[in-house]
């Protein structure tokens, strides 16, 4: 019976990996349109390995923002991964050295969601969920980012293909599953207004970072809501 259950976990890991990998194509093409070369795109994808942070990085660079602003935005978007690590640590301990460093790299929305979706007492299923999803997404995502980057090199003017609109839609798609609470909807609206208000008067990249302040203020003052949990309906890595 345990074998059947593990097969189900691996199947789930595989389908999540393929779904996530598929939009690696859009990340790759958009990175080239933003002005990165194929090597920079692949370095970003392999080392950052967190879809939201990667889209943010190329979004700021593509808008003409300073490299430092791109680093800052991608860092702030990656903070949630740190909290996933906290949730996963009891499951993965004891683990040391390189194995732990690699587990950290695979700590993203998808691997955390599949691991924690398994029954709490079933350690083997949870571990399989984490490692199979993390590894599967890593392989599929990076391969398809490469495909997207190579395609992106061949298509000439990115706006003729609507790639600038694709980037906007990507951000909307990334934020959509996170808007289930009233508080999140309010913060999204406030952040959007703040960013648009600052766009004409500050350098590119600054409006995005300033919008994070809306979240800090709201998060500090708001009444109790549950802590961040990754969701599985088409979330970013």
């Amino acid at each position, binding site marked *: 019976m345990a074998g059947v259950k593990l097969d189900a976990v691996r199947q789930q890991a595989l389908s999540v990996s393929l779904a996530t990998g598929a*939009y690696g194509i*859009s990340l790759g093409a958009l990175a080239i349109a933003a002005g*990165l070369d194929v090597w*920079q795109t692949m370095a970003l994808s392999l*080392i950052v390995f*967190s879809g*939201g*942070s990667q889209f943010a990085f190329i*979004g700021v*660079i593509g808008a003409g923002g300073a490299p*430092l602003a791109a*680093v800052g*935005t*991608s860092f*702030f*978007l990656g*903070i*949630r991964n*740190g909290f996933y690590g*906290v949730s996963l*640590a009891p499951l993965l301990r004891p683990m040391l050295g390189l194995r732990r*460093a690699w587990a*950290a790299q695979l700590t993203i929305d998808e691997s955390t969601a599949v691991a924690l979706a398994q029954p709490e007492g079933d350690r083997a299923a949870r571990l399989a969920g984490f490692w199979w999803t993390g590894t599967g997404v890593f392989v599929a995502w990076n391969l398809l980012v490469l495909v997207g980057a190579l395609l992106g090199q061949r298509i000439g003017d990115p706006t*003729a*293909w*609507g*790639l*600038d*609109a*694709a980037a*906007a*839609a*990507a951000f*909307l*798609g990334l*934020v959509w599953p*996170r808007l289930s609470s009233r508080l999140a909807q309010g*913060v*999204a609206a406030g*952040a*959007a207004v*703040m*960013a*648009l208000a600052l*766009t*004409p*008067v500050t350098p590119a990249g600054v*409006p*995005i970072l300033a919008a*994070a302040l809306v*979240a*800090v203020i*709201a*998060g*500090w003052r*708001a009444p*109790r809501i549950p*802590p961040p949990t990754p969701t599985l309906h*088409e979330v*970013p890595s």
Partner: protein
Amino acid sequence: MSSDAWLWVAVIAAGVLAWATKFVGHVVPQRLTDHPRIQRTALLVTVALLAALAVVQTFSVGTALVLDARVAAIAVAALALALRAPFIVVVVLAAATAAALRAMGIG
């Protein structure tokens, strides 16, 4: 340094920071992060940044606010998301909308 060299520095820095953030989560004692305010703020920062990126990417060129084919594209994307379309479909529909409008000389 050239702007390309700075871009490389930024790519590496973003990567190191991303990994370090994940790693710290695995090694930090749980009681330090167990505060609901901290966890809630981390969640909301993600929402705020993504929302800001979406509107800036839709309504700006450099530091100018503009209305062009991207507005129609983002509306199509929102509709697709409301109908629970997969992420890749949402992105492709938005690109196709903007590309079609521009091919017709609009936006």
